[in-house]
């Protein structure tokens, strides 16, 4: 029997659509890359209005350092928001862990047999574990006792704000050992050796390139292109065509050019900051988790329809618990990056950061209802906020105006996203 049920807008042939039209592919991609485009436009805007300061190598490096802790936390927050929850405690938790790191390394005087605790690596590991435990404790209450995450983490925010004040006894503690400072202030060593393009002399700006950075950039680009081509040929071999060849080439060229340009700028200053390496590894890991791992897939299913996920055999409680534990560990790492950057732990550290983190995830296209969001979006969202902070500060825009403008941008981003979705639905 061949029934032809009337369904407007749906082809009834049952065959997969093999070739997308160029226009269709462009539209689909525009939505995916719209955010990146917005970031580039914002950067160009500030490049113009800061008289070229924004794109100076030293400033680009600064933007990365200033936003690293936001991005690290945005990765975890993305999972939380996709799972349909929220975490208001991350700012306070990061502040608390920064304080803990400071006390372990410089504040507390350990007896000789416990002195190893003050070792930056040991202390760092302890801090990550403590962060994960804090996240796990909150996650336990949320997942297994079904207390709304808003309330649990609101309480957490207050508790850890108080705790960091308490362990620091209201004072700033620092400075940190040199090894620890490297986390935020260090750059990868130039093992290949610098390339001098313009030697230092009278009246000319010298230009020395950090060649290891360039080597890493080229390797990364080659790897990316290789993966893209492999994926495309695998799809083709199975008869699943995705986008026209021309568009595929242009897209990869543009991204490669952007990466190369960016790394070239960094190389002409001091190379890759250590923290960018950490961030890069984490971003890649979280992209992999969300796109390719069953763990990530289940989080999307959980946020999309909790009941359906549970009836599909997904252990929804355990999954929620893990997501919060991961968030806690990332908040701890962010707290250490922040403390290392300031080179001291202060009682006020981390306060209000949760709002920047949450804003970054929402600007990145995540849905407040859960089930929707992408790591790349959250990272770009964080950079959009970061570039605006940086650009406006250079322009000398007052802090009051900065806040208002950021609020408007958040609203506009979400409004635009919803408008787009409604139109396509």
């Amino acid at each position: 029997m061949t029934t032809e049920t009337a369904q407007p807008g749906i082809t009834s042939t049952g065959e997969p659509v093999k070739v997308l039209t160029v226009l269709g592919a462009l539209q689909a991609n525009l939505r995916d890359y719209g955010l990146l485009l917005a970031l580039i436009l914002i950067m160009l805007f500030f490049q113009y209005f800061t008289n070229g300061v924004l794109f100076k190598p030293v400033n680009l490096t600064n933007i990365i350092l200033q936003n690293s802790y936001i991005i690290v936390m945005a990765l975890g927050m993305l999972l939380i928001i996709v799972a349909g929850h929220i975490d208001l405690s991350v700012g306070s938790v990061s502040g608390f862990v920064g304080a803990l790191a400071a006390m372990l390394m410089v504040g507390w005087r350990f007896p000789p047999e416990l002195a190893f605790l003050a070792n930056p690596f040991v202390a760092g590991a302890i801090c990550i574990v403590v962060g994960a435990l804090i996240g796990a404790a909150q996650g336990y209450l949320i997942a297994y006792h079904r207390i709304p995450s808003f309330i649990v983490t609101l309480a957490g925010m207050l508790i850890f704000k108080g705790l960091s004040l308490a362990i620091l006894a209201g004072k700033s503690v620092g400075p940190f050992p040199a090894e620890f400072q490297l986390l935020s202030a260090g750059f990868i060593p130039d093992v290949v050796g610098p390339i001098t393009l313009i030697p230092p002399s009278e009246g000319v700006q010298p230009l020395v390139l950090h060649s290891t950075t360039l080597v890493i950039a080229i390797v990364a680009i080659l790897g990316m292109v290789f993966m893209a081509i492999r994926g495309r040929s695998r799809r083709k071999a199975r008869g699943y065509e995705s986008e026209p060849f021309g568009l595929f080439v242009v897209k990869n060229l543009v991204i490669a050019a952007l990466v190369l340009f960016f790394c070239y700028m960094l190389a002409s200053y001091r190379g890759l900051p250590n923290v960018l390496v950490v961030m890069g590894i984490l971003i890649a890991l979280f992209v992999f988790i969300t796109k390719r791992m069953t763990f990530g897939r289940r989080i999307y299913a959980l946020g999309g329809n909790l009941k359906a996920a549970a009836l599909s055999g997904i252990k929804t409680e355990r999954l929620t618990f893990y997501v919060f534990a991961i968030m806690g560990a990332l908040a701890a790492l962010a707290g250490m990056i922040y403390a290392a950057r300031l080179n001291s732990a202060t009682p006020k550290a981390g306060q209000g950061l949760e709002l920047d983190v949450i804003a970054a995830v929402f600007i990145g296209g995540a849905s407040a209802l859960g089930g929707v969001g992408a790591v790349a979006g959250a990272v770009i969202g964080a950079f959009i906020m970061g570039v605006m902070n940086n650009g406006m500060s250079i322009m000398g825009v007052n802090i009051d105006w900065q806040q208002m403008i950021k609020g408007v941008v958040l609203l506009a981003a979400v409004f635009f996203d919803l408008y787009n979705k409604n139109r396509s639905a």
Partner: protein
Amino acid sequence: MTTNTILEMRGITKTFPGVKALSDVNLDVREAEIHAIVGENGAGKSTLMKVLSGVYPSGSYDGQIVYKGEEQHFKSIRDSEHKGIVIIHQELALVPLLSIAENIFLGNEQATAGVIDWDETRDGARKLLGMVGLNEDPDTLITNIGVGKQQLVEIAKALSKEVKLLILDEPTASLSEKDSAALLDLLMEFRKQGITSILISHKLNEVSKVADRITVIRDGRSIETLNKEDITEDRIITLMVGRSLEDRYPARVPQIGDVVFEVKNWSVYHQLHRERQVIKNIGINIRKGEVVGIAGLMGSGRTEFAMSLFGKSYGQRISGEVYLHGKKIDTSTVEKAVAHGIAYATEDRKTYGLNLIDHIKHNTTIANLGGISRVGVIDDMAEMDVANEYRKKTNIRSSSVYQVTGNLSGGNQQKVVLSKWLFSNPDVLILDEPTRGIDVGAKYEIYTIINQLAAQGKAILVISSEMPELLGITDRVYVMNEGRIVGEMPTSEASQEKIMRSIVRAEGKAS
């Protein structure tokens, strides 16, 4: 009966970007008649009613609406309600945590200067509840009454707006036979009082029972309007699907083997009320290649039974044993049940079955991610292959596996739910109301899938409120009433009367 035309819709054409949902639809409804609109899912019935009630404002469609002799340009639902046209949607629009009285007068509060007169509200509500034959305290919260009664509250709410033309979209889709019959009686009562009703329904037996005239819609066009004397189910079906349908149930030769699945002494207590026993010592068995049905009225505990079996997804203080191939198994979590090869496709696919914001591919694989992954890493290509394979197998109509399931029609959504469970490769499939709210053509396809599964040797349990369906597709039927099995018969010896008799006899004993 007068034969004045109360409503005429002429040449209605409504286009969405890229799609013509309605083209040149004509409908005329006479005063004080029950006019049924039938058609397959996606034929455009709901769109037509949204045009009529102003959900799609005047100007967003072509054509004319003439109501009570005047051309109307409704800009919103408020406009149409103002003229006495009230639409009751399939998904009820009641606020669960407000009382019956509050819901009836929601947006139309009995108030002076914004201050609610509660006596007036309660009295008014009581009067309206009397008119629809609902004997409930107006202060009862909506969440505490059943779906059938909620439907009546919706109608009472419509009456409060001095309705002249009542539009009901699939009003009996989630009602038991008893509640459905009561609702239809009510419509006939309204007809006597001069209220016109437009009834959209899939249930052809109901339609042919109460409707004075029927308009059939297919592919966004009005095909024909039948008068009462011309109405037969076969005729309607022929018009609906555009061809004659010799048999509504595909034929099959059952090949039944040994008992595969057996449940003994199954008892469950209510999710919230610890003392209330919902399932009372039930025992059933299913053989290899057998399709077994559970008949019963709404509220007889069929869904509760199935969900409690499937990973304790319903109820508390669950006791009893489950055997698979003669061995006792543990089904205390969904994961364990699935691992033992049990699958449960829910009756409520939107709430419990699908992630509506995600596409077909992800929904197909979610219950068996292990089947397309290694050490937690998903093989993208394998997933693509699986999704396409099951899309073809279950004949899902979509542009690709990347179509979001929320945009599919009910029948295609149900096929995605089936795909999901087929991919988990179960031995025992529990299908809860597998064809609820889907059209005749898609039903046939689902029956065909069920037959194929039985032919592969799976044990299948079908829960259904539609008795003809159970009689058409099963080999054996259990009858359930108030948490007990009150009858069991081979389908060859069963009939609707016989099933009803077991239920009634059991109720007689219980009281």
